[in-house]
């Protein structure tokens, strides 16, 4: 499973942003797609996950309300969106895929999108 992420972003606090992760239609019909943030101080953190087939979603409580996960299965693309960025949103965001069974690990990863929020 190949996941291709959008490029690095440099934004100012208060701005909005939507990053993307493209797979295949088959992937999006069978996999769950999630987002994982990595920062130097906090390591890896799961942000959110969605099953594009029926839009079931799960959010890490630490990120709920701050970001929105979405997907367009017709083009095999998932998104992570911020309406109001903060400096603390800075980090590398990986999209990752896992199989349908609950408890499955992320077995496919994109290369990551660096998001920098700075005034």
């Amino acid at each position: 499973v190949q996941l291709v992420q959008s490029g690095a972003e440099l934004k100012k606090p208060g701005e909005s942003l939507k990053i993307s992760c493209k797979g295949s239609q088959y992937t999006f019909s069978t996999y769950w797609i999630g987002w994982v943030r990595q920062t130097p101080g906090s390591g890896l953190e799961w942000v959110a996950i969605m099953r594009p087939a029926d839009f079931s979603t799960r959010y890490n409580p630490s990120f709920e309300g701050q970001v929105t996960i979405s997907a367009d299965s017709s083009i095999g693309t998932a998104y992570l969106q911020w309406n109001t960025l903060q400096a603390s949103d800075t980090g590398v965001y990986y999209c990752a895929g896992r199989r349908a069974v609950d408890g499955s690990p992320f077995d496919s990863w994109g290369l990551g999108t660096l998001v920098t929020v700075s005034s």
Partner: protein
Amino acid sequence: QSALTQPRSVSGSPGQSVTISCTGTYTDVGRYNFVSWYQQYAGKPPKLIISDVSNRPSGVPERFSGSKSGNTASLTISGLQPDDEAEYYCCAYAGTWYPYVFGTGTQVIVL
């Protein structure tokens, strides 16, 4: 959910074995046999090397093995090689509404 606790670093000489611990609680590591391990090189995405406590995905060398006892999972690298120098993260399932709790990460240093 709090991050799982791992040692910051472990080291060993080529050919030796090292073990990385991953301590959680009865709500994650202790409750489910859904512990995975990832290897990450600097600037690269994580790579799955162990799933379901002790299963190796295709292509992962037998030198990597996983186990669990109570609230602590472990990753052992046998016959350490220079290429094993990387960051390693554990990850545990904590229920359908919190499927991923990552560990704090461990740097493996090959002397």
